[in-house]
């Protein structure tokens, strides 16, 4: 639910990083926080629990500069990935404008990726939205582990598993090394702003 302040010419929108536990959502935000210091509008807030897992959410406000004379501010969030934090995930997802779905490339996490995507679909539906209508970008993360001889899914398999119907842009990434993190975010912001532009036109 983006906020348009026409008087101050400010657009504020919300992008949520979604995905199964330990897939690298927080690592994405940590990299953005380090790599895009100039655009960061405040501190990154993280609340972790036992085992360094995100408990509630991570939050990072960034500024995109001016788009058509308007100051664009984006709030980046992550959700807790573990199954038991379902209610928190739903709370964080409320009012979302764009989603980055972070999928884990490890073969052993195949089922968890699919479960998490279903969970996203279910939660968006409960807010009267849909995974097909929400600006969405996918990340196939942890590609760097291929070099360590760990069984990873092929990009084709992941696309078949997760993106056969959605057909959204996807990126091979290593959030740990920062590879593909910026591209994913830029694509998600592009889709989000296009969607918001459409909404504003409709409202006019």
């Amino acid at each position, binding site marked *: *639910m983006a906020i348009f302040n026409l008087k101050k010419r400010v657009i504020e929108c919300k992008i949520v990083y979604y995905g199964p*536990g*330990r897939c690298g959502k927080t690592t994405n935000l940590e990299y953005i926080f380090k790599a895009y210091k100039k655009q960061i509008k405040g501190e990154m*807030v993280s*609340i972790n*629990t*036992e*085992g*360094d*897992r995100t*408990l*509630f959410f991570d*939050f990072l406000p960034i500024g995109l500069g001016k788009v058509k004379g308007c100051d664009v501010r984006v*709030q980046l969030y992550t959700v807790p990935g573990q199954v*038991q*934090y379902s*209610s*928190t995930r739903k*709370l964080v997802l*409320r*009012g979302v404008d764009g989603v980055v779905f972070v999928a884990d490339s*490890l073969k*052993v*996490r195949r089922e968890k990726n699919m479960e998490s995507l279903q969970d996203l679909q279910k939660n968006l539906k409960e807010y009267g939205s849909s995974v097909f209508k929400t600006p969405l970008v996918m990340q196939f993360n*942890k590609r760097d*582990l291929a070099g*360590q*001889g*760990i*069984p990873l899914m092929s990009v084709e398999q992941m696309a078949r598993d997760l993106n056969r119907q959605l057909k959204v842009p996807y990126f091979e990434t290593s959030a740990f090394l920062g590879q593909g993190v910026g591209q994913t975010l830029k694509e998600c912001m592009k889709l989000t702003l296009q969607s918001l532009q459409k909404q504003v036109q409709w409202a006019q």
Partner: protein
Amino acid sequence: MSVKSQIELLLREAEIYRSQGLLVEAKGKYNVAVDLIGKLDQAKNKEALIQAICRKIKSLTISYHQIERAQEAPQMPPKVQDLVKNLFSFSQDKDEDKAALEGAITLAKFGQYDRALEEFNELTKKDSLRVVACKNILRCCFSVYSPEEAVERYKKWLKDDLYSKEQLQKIRLFLEDLLDKKGIEIQLPAVLDADEATIDQDRVDEDLIDISSIGITFEGGPQKGQMVEMEVSFQSGNMISLIVSSKDRELIESLKVGFRLNDVQFFSPIAIFQGSGIVMAKTKINSGPKRGDYSLDIKIVNT
């Protein structure tokens, strides 16, 4: 691939999963590795290797249980609580009171019950928000304490002049509904006019017999399972006062205000009965022979 290479690969995989925080997956790989090593007839240091892997499995199991047992919603620092209120209150309501209500509801949704309760309690002072604040207090009581605690709160409000009969009726209906949904059968006191209520309370007070001492059995903490006996120094209706010596540090620290004692034995000259109580006040005695000791007020809530 030779068995040795398979084992090496399994151990490398397990180590990477462990470093990724994927404890179940790591444990799975270590277990397969142990099975494979066990089947080897001639292997150098076979037993030592199995033992080393078993230690890793044990450590993973401990970490896994620690995560499972971790509190689902620990208290956030006040600064983060403020941020949560700000980020997740969506109505943008300009009415300060309504915005405060939404903020408190947001805190409760994030499991920040202590502060949410504080804020709801404050909101009960506002006539227009009293009923909705009370309903939320009852919800919090169900989530964080017990249905009995919710009933106690309702009983407290019944005696409070601040609440109109109409407001109390609404709260009572709401509480009845909550109890029904949980399948709990508790007869809630009816909402009476002020005069009737005073008479009713007097009757309750008269019904309670004199209690000379109590025995508290702790359900947790350092004194778990132990019964601590204390003399009652004063009784007024269902409220009893006890003196706790300053030497009983652990006891003083565990008996915090609001703490519910589920296993209490009440000793009276004519009978012993079992029940529960809530610590209502804890005051340090600053003068006289008991100086330094603590006076505890415990409300008997269920016998």
